[in-house]
């Protein structure tokens, strides 16, 4: 089966979730990948490690920002010119915004939040995570062309491939597709991206104020983790909105989620329930979060966190 994988990059690097998408593609067929905007040939060739044979590169600088209509155009053209049957991408806010359009353009069935490889013994069936992680659905895609958006941290990375060949992919893009003008962009530099992170340290209202986030950040630094927070914390502007985890925020699926001073309301749990392991630190032994946890400590965050940080530093040294 011929598979096209859409690669997203971040600071010139292929995102981990895109490497997962390539690994997924390689498990079901022969992978050509498509990357947009400025990124080095060397970095693109490294997509081969995860199973891509070839990477098409639409290097036009105008594609450095994730503009939805131009991206749609390039990805749809790449799909057609490679004769692909399946488009695979990581589930991300950019991919969400783009692949719905691509699906209409190509007449391709679309499945989002795919968490396992497809079953193909009768039709093409994929398992999707739904109800914000509270259930799954097995869905049959009935068209010849198909699009799969893969849930992050759900697919094991393939790491034993060889370098991929990189080819320029030039698409003439109509100015009309660039109607939206980006006027400014704000981005946390050098931090681990929350939706991609393997470990997340998250703080809630129990931390009492933004000035107390040092203990969360210290722990995150020790673990190479991303920081997250509960909704009231971002509502009160203690932390930026993109750190808000839960039903109405970012859905995370790290191997380890550490929740500090978060009560564990069902809407918060909805965003973290596909984490592999959950640690809860809360001073109230009745906090509902303990029911969803693997490991729990009843205690004051301001006492437990510095001690835990020291112990981790020792263990990881």
């Amino acid at each position: 089966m011929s598979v096209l994988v859409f690669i997203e990059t971040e600071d010139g690097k292929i995102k981990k979730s895109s490497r997962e998408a390539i690994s997924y593609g390689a498990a079901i067929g022969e992978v050509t990948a498509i990357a947009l905007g400025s990124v080095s040939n060397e970095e693109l060739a490294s997509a081969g490690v995860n199973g891509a044979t070839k990477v098409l590169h639409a290097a036009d600088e105008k594609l450095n920002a994730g503009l939805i209509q131009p991206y749609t155009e390039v990805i749809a053209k790449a799909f057609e010119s490679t004769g692909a049957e399946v488009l695979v991408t990581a589930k991300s806010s950019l991919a969400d915004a783009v692949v719905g359009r691509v699906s209409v353009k190509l007449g391709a069935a679309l499945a989002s939040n795919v968490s396992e490889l497809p079953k193909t013994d009768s039709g093409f069936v994929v398992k999707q995570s739904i109800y914000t992680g509270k259930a799954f659905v097995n869905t049959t895609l009935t068209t010849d062309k198909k699009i799969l958006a893969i849930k992050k941290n759900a697919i094991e990375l393939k790491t034993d491939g060889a370098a991929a060949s990189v080819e320029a992919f030039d698409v003439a893009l109509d100015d009309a597709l660039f109607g939206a003008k980006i006027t400014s962009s704000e981005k946390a530099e050098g931090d681990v991206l929350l939706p991609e992170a393997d470990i997340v340290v998250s703080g809630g209202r129990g931390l009492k104020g933004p000035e107390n986030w040092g203990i969360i950040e210290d722990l995150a630094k020790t673990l190479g983790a991303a920081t997250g927070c509960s909704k009231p914390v971002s509502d009160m502007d203690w932390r930026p909105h993109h750190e808000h985890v839960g039903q109405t925020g970012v859905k995370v699926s790290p191997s380890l989620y550490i929740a500090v001073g978060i009560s564990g309301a069902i809407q918060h749990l909805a965003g973290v329930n596909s984490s592999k392991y959950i640690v809860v630190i809360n001073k109230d032994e009745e906090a509902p979060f303990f029911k969803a946890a693997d490991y729990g400590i009843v205690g004051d965050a301001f006492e437990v966190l510095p001690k835990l940080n020291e112990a981790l530093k020792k263990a990881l040294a």
Partner: protein
Amino acid sequence: MNILVCITHVPDTTSRIAFTENNTKFDKNGVQFIIGPYDDYALARAVELKEANGGKVTVLNVGEAETEPTLRKALAIGADEAIRVNAFPSDSYFVAKQIADVAKQGEYDLILMGRESIDFNGGMVHGMVGEMLGLPSFSPVMVLEVEGNTAKITREIEGGKEKLEVNLPFVAGCQEPIAEWKIPNMRGIMSARTKPLNVVEPTDNTKLTEIAQYELPAPKGAVKMIDADNVEELVNLLKNEAKVI
């Protein structure tokens, strides 16, 4: 300004999720249905824009008759008119097609909806509608200001945000903090009863996917409690049992 707001009718965020008929149907028993939380943000912002600039807000749901109380609630919040496309929302393509066909019947300056539904979490209908109508689409939009024929929007990107300037009309998938959720007041609830709710039949029955079967995740094992004075034990478990550090 003429705004179309597309809303989903979804289980309350506290619902226990279960299935019936050999895991082929969602179990509605005891479930309270609400306007999708993201759609509710879109609706709140639409009502604010109408209050500031004049115009009309139309809410649209693709769903069977049982969704009418949810549409009435949207009318109570401040929408002027509701449309229900009388069909089970069988997949995202099908729903997007109904929305696009309704949108073609009106001259909408903005088509707003939530960034994703909280039942299927697909997050792709806004893009599909945009492509079907040949309009730009943006998501997730967290700020939306309109001035004349242009809009200033802020969209969230992973790890940050981006400001854009765009011309109307367009489609937006919305999220907080675009507006605060609005709670209907008594006057709103009374007036909602007499506002028009038009039922139209689907225009096209194409769908691209079929649901085979639902599943529930494996239940979580019991929590291991660790003494607050023994954080070394937690480190040991993370390292040697969970093997995550």
